């Protein structure tokens, strides 16, 4: 019997290919969809056929054609170009809002779960109360509180996304911290005399990475919906910003004449969220966690 020769993989690309095949299908599809969106977001402004507020690109409301795949709105702007120009705005706002929410939520939640006691109790009640206000309602009153001078400001939208997500992320981080805090290495760190902040940063945070990563992906998946809903209701970015929710609301009145001007931005928004959701589900499976997709 001949001894089979097992040769080591020669090329690194081959190893990556094996790794790629082992990932769940949802992860792969999600990643590809996200990459397409990212490429459009980054390169889009350079190749979009028209400017985002350029008028007179064709006959207003003339519908779908090869030169105008998403039609032309009532002001004569090319909707496809607007969608492309809006891509980086939607993605940037969603990601930065979720990232700030993650940072604040993780720090608060981990500290709260580790320290326990009155700090934990007080914070839990406050976060519970913030979660009890439906997230869109919370976002709306936060914007109302900021006042008319700040309305339409992208930074306000980012902070509102962070405000809505931070309590929800903190709740997850707290549960993770309470679990990790029972392990021996945390006790050792505490007995070494490390401060709560340093225990959180060096012991809790690295061990909660998986949970927080999935949580970030899950929240980031709905951030575009939140940003879009605010824009749609007229509390988000201001026209002529090509934010997708705002575009859907602007073109909705004329949906009877040119449905594609609504469906185009809608397709962009829905495909981004589908991509993020598939990615999240796959990521959770790779990290050995379960995730319930949903906005609740």
């Amino acid at each position, binding site marked *: 019997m001949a001894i089979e020769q097992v040769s080591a993989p020669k090329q690194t690309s081959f190893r990556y290919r094996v790794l790629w095949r082992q990932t769940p299908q949802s992860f792969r599809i999600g990643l590809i969809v996200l990459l397409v969106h990212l490429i459009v977001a980054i390169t889009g402004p350079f190749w979009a056929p028209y400017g985002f507020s350029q008028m007179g690109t064709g006959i207003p409301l003339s519908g779908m054609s090869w030169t105008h795949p998403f039609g032309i709105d009532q002001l004569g702007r090319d909707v496809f170009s607007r969608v492309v120009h809006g891509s980086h705005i939607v993605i940037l706002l969603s990601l930065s809002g979720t990232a700030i929410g993650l940072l604040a939520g993780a720090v608060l939640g981990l500290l709260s779960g580790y320290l326990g006691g009155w700090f934990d109790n007080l914070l839990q009640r*406050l976060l519970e109360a913030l979660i*009890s206000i439906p997230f*869109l309602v919370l976002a709306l*009153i936060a914007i*109302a509180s900021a*006042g008319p001078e700040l309305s339409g400001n992208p930074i306000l939208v980012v902070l509102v996304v962070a405000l809505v997500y931070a309590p929800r992320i903190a709740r997850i981080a707290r549960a993770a911290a309470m679990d990790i805090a029972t392990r021996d290495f945390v006790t050792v760190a505490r007995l070494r005399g490390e401060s709560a902040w340093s225990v959180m940063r060096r012991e809790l945070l690295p061990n909660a990475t998986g949970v927080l990563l999935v949580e970030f992906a899950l929240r980031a998946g709905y951030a575009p919906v939140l940003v879009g809903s605010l824009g749609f*209701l007229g509390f988000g970015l201001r026209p002529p910003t090509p934010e997708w929710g705002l575009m859907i609301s602007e073109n909705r009145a004329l949906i009877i004449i040119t449905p594609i001007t609504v469906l185009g931005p809608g397709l962009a928004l829905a495909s981004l969220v589908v991509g993020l959701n598939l990615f999240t589900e796959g990521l959770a499976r790779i990290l050995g966690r379960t995730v319930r997709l949903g906005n609740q």
Partner: protein
Amino acid sequence: MPILRLVAGRILLSVLTLLIVSLIVFAVLEVLPGDVASRILGRDATPEALELLRIKLGLNDPAPVRYLHWLGGLLSGDFGQSLVSSRPVTDILAPRIYNTVLLSLYAFLLYLPLTVIPALIQAIRRDRPVDHGLSIVTLVLLSMPDFLLATILLFTFVVLVPILPAISLVDHSSSALDYLRAMTLPALTLAIVMAVYAVRMLRDNLIEVLDSDYVRMAELKGLSAKRVLLRHALPNALVPTLNVTALNLAYLVGGVVVVEKVFSYPGFGSLLVDSLQLRDLPVIETTVMIAALVYVGANLIADIAAVLLNPRLRTA
């Protein structure tokens, strides 16, 4: 009775949460913005008008006094007067809440078959094309913002197949049929959004139950497949879904804001958006508090139902 104590504890916590919500709402809307009077009247207001509004709102008192006064009003059912129409908030709110309750009931009525039927089909045809197809449909619907879903439904049933009205304006003089027609699209939107979460969960539960020993036992006894599915598997798979249903009720409170606005349905959610645009503070505060009340109530019911249905949670 340990259960009673547990339930009482949960109720107390909920009341505490609502109190903190009221503090947050008051702080966010009346303390943080600085001078509320100039915020409401805008930059061009005359000093006299500002002073008048300050007196009307009691803005010259210190914040804690104003908070206690406001909270006392809320608790005794006196929600104040609208700044825009000078009518009592109660009069403005009552018909809106009535409309939204009707809409929610209708949505829940549509929600049940929309959840059970697709989940049953998926569970029976597990891993077949139908199952995969429906999984993709629910994933796409799950990822679709509710305002987009509402707009697409509007386009489908108003433009392509014109059977329903585009604008859902109703008032107390509308007939029952008008109400039903007006409510169908918003209710359908809400029902679909709620159902997609539940379908995904119910499908997994059903498959798990169908693999269990006692379902196999029922099959071996020679019961018909239909009877096994509907009488043995479904009731057991539904229990975990009840929790989702209670959470869906909580979703509804926020969901109506967008959906009612899309269809111009005169309910509680569109009232909130309108009063935010008009900066009608007493109406905003009352609607937000009611939204939080329903949300906390729905979660409380979900918690208590979970404890009653699952004895293992009772010791926790």
